[in-house]
């Protein structure tokens, strides 16, 4: 009993530390940093972890939460924020996914729920009203945690010379650990886009 309580405390401390760390960045305004070629860099937006359900098993510690959050943040940055900012197709994100998950990339409709692609560059600003991940983990009988589900709720407002749009991405990812390497093993996401009224900009 004491051991379980202690484990919960440790997990909560780890979670709090991750959450507070993220909150500083969540919804951040476009950073002033620039890419190597001098163009403005995409803003830094990361997830706030809003709770972990251990489902009656050993709660995850920082050894699980940190790499899981790192994968989620990398997914958000590389699949959503960077292509939205640049207006270019996303770069290679296969290293974030297991081989089994990658087999679904071939379906364009499925891929469209996963990555941001095809919009004009939102180079003026990208802000996050919400970038929250709720986690659910399960420890096996041996106590090892090799499976974590993440319920995502991302609400972005993106502005550029030819775009002023609200984007909502929500759904669930399931991550698995193989020899300590966390990757997204399955996904079910939805995306909605709503364009805001934007005054015509001269002569287009």
């Amino acid at each position, binding site marked *: 009993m004491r051991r379980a309580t202690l484990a919960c405390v440790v997990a909560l401390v780890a979670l709090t530390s991750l959450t507070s760390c993220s909150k500083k960045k969540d919804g951040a305004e476009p950073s002033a940093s620039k890419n190597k070629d001098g163009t403005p860099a995409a803003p830094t937006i990361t997830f706030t972890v809003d709770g972990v*359900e251990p*489902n009656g098993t050993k709660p995850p510690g920082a050894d699980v939460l940190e790499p899981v959050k790192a994968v989620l943040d990398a997914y958000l940055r590389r699949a959503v924020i960077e292509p939205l900012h640049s207006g270019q197709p996303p770069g290679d994100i296969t290293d974030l996914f297991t081989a089994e998950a990658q087999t679904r990339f071939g379906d364009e409709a499925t891929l469209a729920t996963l990555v941001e692609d095809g919009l004009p560059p939102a180079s003026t600003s990208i802000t996050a009203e919400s970038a929250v991940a709720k986690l*659910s983990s399960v420890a*096996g009988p041996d106590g090892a945690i090799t499976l974590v*589900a993440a319920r995502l709720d991302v609400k972005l407002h993106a502005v550029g010379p030819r775009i002023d749009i609200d984007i909502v991405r929500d759904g669930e990812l*399931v991550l698995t650990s193989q020899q300590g390497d966390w990757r997204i093993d399955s996904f079910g996401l939805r995306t909605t886009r709503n364009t805001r009224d934007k005054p015509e900009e001269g002569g287009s």
Partner: protein
Amino acid sequence: MIRRSRRFTIVLVVVAAVLAWPALASSQAGEHAITVHKVDNGSFVALQPSQPFFLLLIGNDGRAGLEGIRGDAIHLVGVNPANHSATILNIPRDTWVNIPGHGNEKITRSMEFGGLQLQVQTIAALTGVTFSFAVTTDFEGFQRLVDDMGGLEVNVAERMFDRASGADFHPGRTYMAGPAALAFSRNRHLNGGDIARTTNQGWLLIAALERARQVSHSPFDTMRLLGLMSRHTRFEGVGLRDLFGLVSFGLSIDPANVRNVTMPATTGQVGKASVVFAAPGHQELFADFRDDAILQSH
């Protein structure tokens, strides 16, 4: 010692997980009513497995004070991912078969002679089916699992009143808590005897799938299921990722696409023992089942 009355247990679920249920949290941690045993080198990590696969679900009569556990409720589950369909093929426990290394005996005794491994081997030899997973649960586990699911709704085909099992049901859709479900699965005083009872156990499996689908709608729900399983299940060669894929896929199958078929059989005697003999046509049925988990000709 408890008198061995061949009474019976039942089964597990379409997927072991399907029966495990949230209220299991109230059960004592550390109990392992269920064992999930990986039989071959197959893997279910892909959420959309493309090839048909087969599970063996066995209800054993294990309980405190009873020596020699037998595998009483025997159900082969074949899943065809392409069609999103499944077939439950039921084998009566008293089926007279050759048990490797032990000669001819009732198939239920193969577990007593050599544990789950020998029972899997015996059933594989009988049917020609290669199993990926075998799942077994005991007498107590079954009742608790059904209760923790919140009970099952089962279609009762005929009036049942049987003091031995405690079955007392009228025809029609009937709610059953754990003890009632156990009684339903044990009652063999029916038209069709043990063969009809075996078929009824298959209906319980489908009822369990229906119930699980009512309350499981997302990966988070599946994770809860796995959490319960993790605390109450012994995994032999099976990982959580495997189970997640398997359970997710199982829950995606509409119960309307699950067939419940019992091996053609006749009853008879061997010495003083009442037994079940595989009837003509059983080999064709097994062949039809094992090629793609769908019964085209039956």
